[in-house]
């Protein structure tokens, strides 16, 4: 097992490469997911507030996306 991790003496370089790659990709994924969740809660809040304030115009919010 330790032979596998030492990679013929180059273990530190190889594991650093794979580690940094994994870290960067996971960080980007988590940042994206977190941003998505934040935007979703913010959107929900806004929509409920606006809907409560003006029930007759709740439809207009959909236009903003397609126009």
């Amino acid at each position: 097992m330790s032979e596998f991790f030492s990679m013929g003496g180059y273990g530190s370089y190889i594991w650093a490469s794979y580690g940094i790659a994994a870290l960067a990709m996971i960080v980007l994924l988590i940042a994206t997911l977190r941003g998505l969740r934040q935007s979703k809660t913010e959107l929900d809040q806004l929509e409920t507030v606006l809907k409560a304030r003006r029930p007759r115009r709740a439809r207009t919010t959909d236009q903003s996306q397609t126009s």
Partner: protein
Amino acid sequence: MHRFAKPSVFLKLTGAMMPWMVALTVILTVVGLYLALIGSPVDYQQGNTVRIMYIHVPAAWMGLFCYVGMALCGAMSLIWKHPLADICARATAPVGATFTALTLITGSLWGEPMWGTWWVWDARLTSMLILLFLYLGYIALVNAFDDPERGSKAGSALALVGVVNVPIVKFSVDWWNTLHQPASVARMDGPSIDPSMLAPLLIMAFAFTGYYFIILVLRVRLELNQRRIRALQLSGLFDERAAANGDDDALAYDQGHNAGAGK
């Protein structure tokens, strides 16, 4: 084509595809990692360090692929004026920048044991570094505007200018390199690649592509949400003012121009 570019259709379609994409990417990653770390042979010249290649080369491919993708999106936004094209370009940039940076870092980690140096002004390394600068410029430009739509449009124009420039930069760097390159550094081209090494390389490349598409979908959604939040906030402000003034004009204007109200 236009049908798929509608945000609502996009959301529905990608929502259905998402679990499959995630599953496929996970499987590809696991198989790719197994082959790259355990299942592939040791290179007779480079020993185990050749395993860095299975990250390095696919990352380099993705770095280029993402830039071309951004430019294609830019072209689509220019020609067909799709709102989604700009958003796709914008969502691609962070992934491309990440992969380009990973190419440079893993290349450095490969170069140290093999060439004995972290960095050489080799043509490929230098071109990759400039590509990273182009990504950073794009990201900085896109985020520099108060109106995200304006930022995305400017970004699309820049991506197009950049993609015209990339071959010129590549050519000039190659030319510059042949003049200045000390011949002592071993080239990485090597002989044609063995199938037992090609398999993990390609599988890792597909896994990265899957990862890219997952992030793309998520970021496009994020962007759509943010635009909607902005539109709602603006219309909310409009409502408040209209209610305060008893002004019907503002409401009527708002009804039609929800998205453009910020201008």
